């Protein structure tokens, strides 16, 4: 559905490229998370995908249509929430939808109302945007992105500023869109838990380069993660590294061929007073920290 091929974009000659030779693809009906620190190049990459930023090299195709050559045709299949959605505050939500959809060729009122009901804004849709809460604006943003029905949904930090309830609701909506309509979703976020719970696959960017691409379920399969507490943390780290383990963030990692019981015994033998030794599910956070520290490379080339 979406294919990003070797895109490079450098805004300033004296600075490294914002995006450097980035390639990845997202198949139809999949949800892909684009992860990275602030300034990692996520927004630039999304800008190139949406044809808002012209790449110095490379290109993007959406459903076999090249964005850089036939932007309007390619983007006709895309709905997007690009950064914080800013609506016309002095107009109602309904009028905003009318204005925005007119740029996509117009949408019937029944289709608009159906979408408004789906995002749960039917009671407030005729209120001015200036009276909307952040969560309501976000719901309206989702509605406008889905009108007219897109095949690819691009979400840039969609849950930024939402309360926990709003985040959960948004997450469920995205999953429902994938399951019910078969939408392909490209989601940029810095919330690792969000990406972990929603995405099928992830692409991690660091300084404009891709440092990991793979399935969310695939990562970390060659490591086992532990939460370990001890009286003397320095001694614990020293002993852990001595037995071949690694510490990434707050997590302690060993390779799968090592026996956890042997490791615990080795720690005790080293004189470490261990008060907690719990094996953990490999989290996206640990993967993210691994690739950030350069310990792990691409899951898929």
């Amino acid at each position, binding site marked *: 559905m979406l294919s990003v091929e070797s895109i490079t974009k450098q805004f300033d000659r004296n600075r490294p490229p914002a995006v450097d030779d980035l390639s990845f693809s997202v198949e139809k009906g999949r949800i892909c998370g684009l992860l990275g620190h602030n300034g990692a190049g996520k927004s630039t990459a999304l800008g190139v995908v949406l044809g808002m930023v012209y790449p110095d090299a490379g290109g993007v195709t959406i459903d076999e249509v090249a964005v850089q050559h036939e932007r309007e045709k390619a983007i006709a299949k895309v709905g997007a929430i690009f950064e914080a959605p800013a609506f016309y505050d002095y107009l109602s939500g309904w*009028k905003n939808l009318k204005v925005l959809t007119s740029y996509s060729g117009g949408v019937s009122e029944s289709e608009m109302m159906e979408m408004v009901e789906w995002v749960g804004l039917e009671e407030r849709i005729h209120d001015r945007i200036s009276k909307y809460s952040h969560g309501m604006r976000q719901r309206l943003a989702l509605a406008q992105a889905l009108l007219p029905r897109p095949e690819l949904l691009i979400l840039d930090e969609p849950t930024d500023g939402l309360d926990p309830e709003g985040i959960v609701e948004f997450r469920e909506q995205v999953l429902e869109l994938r399951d019910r309509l078969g939408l392909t979703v490209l989601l940029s976020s810095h919330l690792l838990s969000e990406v972990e719970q929603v995405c099928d696959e992830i692409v991690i960017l660091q300084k404009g380069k891709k440092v990991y691409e793979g399935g969310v379920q695939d990562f970390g399969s060659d490591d086992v993660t532990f939460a370990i507490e001890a009286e003397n943390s320095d001694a614990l780290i020293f002993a852990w590294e001595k037995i071949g383990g690694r510490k990434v963030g707050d997590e302690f990692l060993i390779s799968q061929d090592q026996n956890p019981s042997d490791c615990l015994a080795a720690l005790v033998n080293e004189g470490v007073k261990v008060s907690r030794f719990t094996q953990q599910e490999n989290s996206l956070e640990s993967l993210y920290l691994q690739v950030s520290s350069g310990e792990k490379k691409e899951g898929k080339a």
Partner: protein
Amino acid sequence: MRLFCQQLGWELYRLFARRRTYIGFGIFLLVEIVFYLIWTRGGGARQLERMIERFAGGLDEYLSGLTLAFLMVAFTMLLLGVIFVSLIAGDILAKESEDGNLRLLLVRPISRFRLLLLKFLSCQIYTTTLFLFVAASSLFIGCLGQGWGGKMLVAAPDLPKVSLFDWWEGMGRYFFAILGFSVVYLPVIGIAFLLGSLRVKPATATIVTIAILIADRIMGKMPLEAFDPYRDYFITSRMDAWYLLLYQEIPWVSD
């Protein structure tokens, strides 16, 4: 074409839905009323009477609502026209870009050229509507004070001689000239729009446009012979062309 008109309609709807439009139009109306009161109660009326006696005779006929309406429009637009139009045109891109509205439009399947064309055209239509509003409200105020009917006298510094019209011919010329007046504002819209498309604050686009036009007007009117060969090249000199539509005989360009 239908879709283009629909999009243009929504652009205009957005412009007219802003509170600024009503406040702006209200201020224009207020200035017209103030002008009318000062003119009729101050020395302006006597000056006009003297002029009418000198050029046309028949004071009652020429001191009409139409004659006053023309003066009100010229005065009001001279005072506020450039400021308001450059505010609208400078704002339409710069403010939307600053607020982030433009991003929501740019992710839609529409070319940038078309988007800019829609916004530019909406500015021009908005300007024409403003001029027609000022023209109609000035005529209303003028007729309220002087009554319906009579003749029209047009005297302005850029007119070589006074033009005299019957009521209906004057009415036609009045609105024709107003349309021309709104069209000569294209450079104002163009400059403000261009500046607004750069990465500047909306106020910067407006202020720089006004500054350019003031500097242009001062240089264009500079009483120095050295400026004579260049006078026609100044933007504001060209903008004065709308007066030609109020000549007794319009000097159409034949070739």
